[in-house]
């Protein structure tokens, strides 16, 4: 049996508002393209936060590369990248500086310092920004001064530049128009080296829109903190969706 890249084993989580994730188990293997479906409040964001190690479960185990999350070093942890629903960019930095922050896991302190002083190289950041359909004119703009859709793509470029093995994305198409949604979805799901850009082979994306399920090979449905189904895309039927919506 192939070892999963990322594994949750009987994980339970309870937050201050008494929201619970109940006894969730999940194995994510290399190369999988997973769509995570569920209504607002179903627990998708909590699940993603546990998968990337931001939240610690009250019960159960999280393993990455078959190693307990707590025992991983920073380099191993940096193999997971996340696109957050609320983007979480650093305000007052420019778009390119924000994208360069994605390289912090692989670069020294000097790089971080030069990035803040605006004297580091932005070539790589620009390459990723261009692939994310960002125009040159916004590269050096303050993050406060660009639109919601542009911010969304900056956040996507920041996570891609991380050169991770697993990409977790929490509703990454929220602020994008249909054309951009299609472009970005293709970018995240098609792993061929386009414009010399490496995209993570393994992806888990939480979604609201069912018309975006093309290109995924596995669908997970969540409701009230529980996984109600976890099936191959080809086996998805209407009654599955009725269960969660």
């Amino acid at each position, binding site marked *: 049996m192939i070892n999963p890249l990322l594994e949750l084993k009987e994980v339970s989580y309870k937050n201050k508002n008494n929201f619970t994730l109940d006894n969730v188990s999940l194995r994510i293997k290399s190369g999988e393209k997973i769509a995570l479906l569920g209504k607002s409040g179903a627990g998708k964001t909590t699940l993603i936060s546990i998968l990337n190690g931001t939240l610690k479960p009250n019960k159960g185990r999280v393993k990455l590369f078959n190693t307990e999350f707590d025992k991983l070093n*920073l380099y191993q942890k940096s193999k997971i990248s996340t696109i957050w629903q609320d983007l979480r960019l*650093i*305000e007052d930095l420019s778009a390119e500086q924000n994208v360069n922050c994605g390289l912090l896991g692989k*670069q020294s302190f000097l790089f971080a310092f030069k990035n803040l002083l605006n004297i580091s190289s932005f070539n790589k950041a620009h390459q990723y920004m261009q692939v994310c359909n960002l125009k040159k004119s916004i590269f050096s703009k303050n993050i406060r001064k660009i639109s919601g859709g542009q911010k969304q793509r900056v956040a996507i470029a920041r996570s891609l530049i991380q050169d991770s093995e697993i990409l977790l994305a929490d509703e990454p198409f929220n602020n994008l128009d249909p054309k951009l949604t299609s472009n970005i979805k293709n970018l995240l799901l098609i792993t061929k080296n386009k414009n010399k850009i490496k995209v993570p082979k393994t992806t888990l994306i939480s979604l609201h829109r069912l018309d975006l399920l093309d290109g995924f090979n596995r669908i997970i449905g969540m409701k009230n903190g529980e996984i109600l189904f976890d099936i191959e895309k080809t086996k998805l039927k209407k009654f599955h969706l009725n269960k969660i919506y």
Partner: protein
Amino acid sequence: MNKLKLNSSSITFLPILVCIPITYELFINFHIGGIELFREFIISALNPKINNEIIFTLVKRLNETVFIAFSSWLISMMFGVILGILSSEIFYKIINLPKFLKRFLNLFLTFIRSIHEIIWGLVLMQIYGINFSIGVIAICIPYIAINAKVFSEQIENINLKTVESIKQINGNKSSTLISLVWTPVIKTFKNFGLYRLECAIRSTAVLGLFGVGGIGTSIFLSFQTLNFRELWTYLWGLAFLIIISKELLNKFNLSYSSKKFLTLFVIALFCISLFSLSFFVYFIFYKNAIPFNSINNLLISNLNFISYDFLKLLLETIVLCLLSTGIAISFPPFFILFFNNKIGITIIRIISFLFRLIPPPLLILLLLMFNDPSISLAAITLGLHNAAITSKLLLANLHNQDNTQYIAMKSLGVSKRSSWLFGLFVKQANSYLAYCAYRSDIIIRETAILGVIGSVGLGWQLQESLSSFAWKEVLVILIAYSSIAIIGELINDKIKSNLT
């Protein structure tokens, strides 16, 4: 009968009532002994002494002032940033250190911040003698803690979700930390740091009055010899320095794109900080400190507070704080309301500039020419100096405010004063009161200066205890001062959080 309901605007005017006891005490203590001298002082303002010798001394003293102020500003900024980061929640979220260190650091900073630079100056002068370094260190100690508090507050405003997202990139901890704190630090430096340089110049001038050097020392010597024309030359020199430095700072628009400048600036700050730290260590451990050669002095010196009526002095200090704060809050809106025309506002601006310019110790010495020392005299001095500062802020905010409501009210036939009150001031009242709450923190600390000169409260006792090297008493007074300041700060923080 309707129940009395106070709002921010009425609370702003209410403290004017402190004028009743103050006026009464000033009236019964009034004498005309120094009226002639005061007249001479006023006339000399328009006829300062100008000759080669005075100009040479003025330039020399201004150089000293700039040196002390700039050095202390630079050092306090750098250490303020470092300690601000170390005392912020985010630092402990990124670098996994025990949180008791944060609490301990905050407590330490609160203590050193609560004691005014003048007190630090007096204590250090008594231990180490008079020299430039005393001025720099005395200003640096509270300034570092004040700056650290401001930087820390701004860093705490970073969205915790952003912290999580950058942490999740899993870069090394120092890279993560610097990436997160950089923008709030630079922003605070731009908005607050440059203003602190102006504060450092003022503090240097006041410390100079106590003999540290710089323009303050010349001002004090001229006053002692009643050479008012010479005194005004130095005062105008100080005004020139403040105005020039302010203009230069306004021109100094630090932008994120000025890469080379920023790089050089950061490297320079780092080098200066390292140098200053080593100098500080040298100063503390290798300089001769004859009167204070061991901690035993604290234990063996006498503590004879009952005879000094310590509690009475403590109470006087608290009353002085309250009266001065009352004046600082209520005078600006009161006078702007009653002299609300172009000439009136210009006169208010000129008078408040003069009250800001003349250091409070000098102001109280002038007022002592025709009044006996009392709490009211100290309160009016401290109150007027601070009212000059709050009025500057209020006038600037009123000027920048949208005045459509004011115009609308005037067009309805409402009187100019009522239109100003309900159309302009009402909108400002909350933020003005919040600033006054912050100002009262400073007033509490400043009571020490007035105490030393005006024979009121703990400041006077501190001077006495220092002169007799009664270190145990000095320590108790410092603790008392610090306690008043910390309690005041806690109350003011509560008020500020309710207002904003």
